[in-house]
């Protein structure tokens, strides 16, 4: 397994997009592609070839679960963990998102300082490494 390098972040809120981009680039040292909608993410997918996708749950138009469903129809996303981000939800909703195929759910507000480590851990878990 290679290291986590390329992260796609799909989020409609510009402030959150920016904070996450800086955290992931500066602290995490990742190559980041920020997208403002599910469609933009789908369009950019082939070219950017992310290792992992961070996906906001609530977006106008195509929301997180719908975007995930679209992603899962594309064969090239088979090996890409998709991580949901959402404001504090009921544990049952978290379980539901995981059932839909989310690798993990990160609760907002997130800590920009630890976000990169969090997704690195999720990445390792997904690939079955200790």
């Amino acid at each position, binding site marked *: 397994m290679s290291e986590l390098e390329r992260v796609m972040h799909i989020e409609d*809120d510009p*402030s*959150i997009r*920016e*904070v996450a981009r*800086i*955290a992931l680039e*500066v*602290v995490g040292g990742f190559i980041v592609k920020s997208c403002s909608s599910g469609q933009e993410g789908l369009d950019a997918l082939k070219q950017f070839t992310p290792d992992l996708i961070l996906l906001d749950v*609530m977006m*106008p138009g195509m929301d997180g679960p719908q975007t995930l469903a679209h992603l899962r129809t594309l064969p090239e996303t088979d090996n890409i963990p998709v991580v949901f*981000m*959402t*404001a*504090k939800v*009921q*544990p*049952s909703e*978290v*379980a*539901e998102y*995981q059932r839909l195929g989310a690798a*993990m*759910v*990160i*609760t*907002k*507000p*997130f*800590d*920009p*300082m*630890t976000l990169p480590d*969090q997704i690195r851990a999720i990445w390792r*878990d*997904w690939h*079955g*490494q*200790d």
Partner: protein
Amino acid sequence: MDKTELLRSQLLVLAESFRQRLETDIPALSDLARSLPATTEAPIEPLRLLRDSLHKLAGSAGTFGYPTLGNKARELEQTARQCLDQRSWDDACRQRLIDGIDELKTMQKAGHSAQGPNPQMAQASVQPSSALRIFILDDDPQSALRVAQTLESFGYVVVTFATAAKLTPALEHDRPDALVLDVSPGTAGHGLLESIQRLQATWNQPLPLIAVSDQESFDIQLSAVRAGAQGFFIKPLDLAALENRLERCFNSFQSEPFRVLVVDDDIDLAQRFEAVLSSADMRVETVSDPRLLLQHMDVFMPDVILMDVNMPDYSGPELAQMIRMNDNWLRVPIVYLSAETDVARQMAALLKAGDDFITKPISDSVLITTVYSRAQRARLVSQALARDSLTGLLKHADIKEQVELEIERARRTKLPVSIAMIDIDHFKQVNDSHGHGVGDNVIRALANLLRQRLRKGDRLGRYGGEEFVAVLPNCNAEDAKTILDDIRAAFNALYFSGSNGAFQCSFSAGVSACQALGWEASGLLERADASLYQAKAQGRNRIVLADSGSDIP
């Protein structure tokens, strides 16, 4: 400049633009709330917009150094959500939203803390299951400390108040998830009961209140009930019982949504059912190919099945009989949907299998009510059947079944699963020296602690007398060991009241896993059991990992 400083300075810049954004966003929210009509019909679309905007704000404000504002936004989001879900709308709801958003305005004007966004702040909120906050007011500082320590070891966040004067504003502005209040005559808490009663009336969900007292008088209990008490405990407190009651208060608020499986070949109709039931907060899935029905059920675990009677090639009663051939699905109610109005033929279908009929055309409210009541009843019954009466955990056979299910899932999804076998140390001595009642308290306390500390998706069962099994999906053996070791330390720190003073308990556990690279799935329970035996042999109060049984170094 190191990374932390670089990030911090960049965050400051972003926080400034977020502050500017709030200056337009919050007045916009306020306008939106004020534009909501004061009709009796809930204004669905604008309310949704308001709910979604508040949800966004709840998610972002904390990251930019406005945690209080974020929390308030979350509370308002829930208010809006409730109005939507229950379709209940009146001037009071409207006013509550308007007032709440005005509060947001005040919080925004007051500005956030001077240090700006705080990268440490969100530490606690990254946990998938959020910690519940409990306020305590007790005239006896010793007793307050003991309650606080116990509840903290159960994973709650506890804030202790010294005086009523400090508690009251905190209740109003920073509502906790529960309040433990000393209401003994002459105490500050006793004097607060009336104002708490008034406060309760202003909240749309009551605040769980646990009253503790040094006297068991009728009058005190009555005023506690009037203030919304859901538990009443006499000092010296039985802390396990108190925790158990709190647990029950919380469970009634966060039960999982009902799952409904729709079996109908008419896709349009199925989508409509899906929309109607989803609007009542149920999870719905549709099977249009009946050949996949049983597989679908295994994955989705429905609470209720809605079944079309007439489908090409198959009839509803035929499929219902197939479902009933499986013991596991006996408890799931099957509701037929049909244009059949001939009562005799309806009865004939019900005699074969199935529980109820809804006749097409179907009104939304009949559909929701029928499915809801059936689902609720089915949940209660299956809980009563599958749950151990002392602990509320799964019974032996059911947890064994969960173990098999989760191992199968792990092999399919290539996500690890860990199994832990947990046994209370020297439990017989507890029973012998303190009696079975105290022993039961210890068992219940461990059950509650495990439930608190494990994730909602984890499975937990009472395997034998003082033996428990936990199934942790998507968790490798090392992580499972770490998690259990934390729980072990917390359990070890609990004090139980026994016949001759306080005493402590410990447990041992063995952990096995089905994980990379071997994905060895056979004998996981046996391996966990063997490790538990080793943990006991090595001196108890410890967690031992099983050999992976594969080629992991």
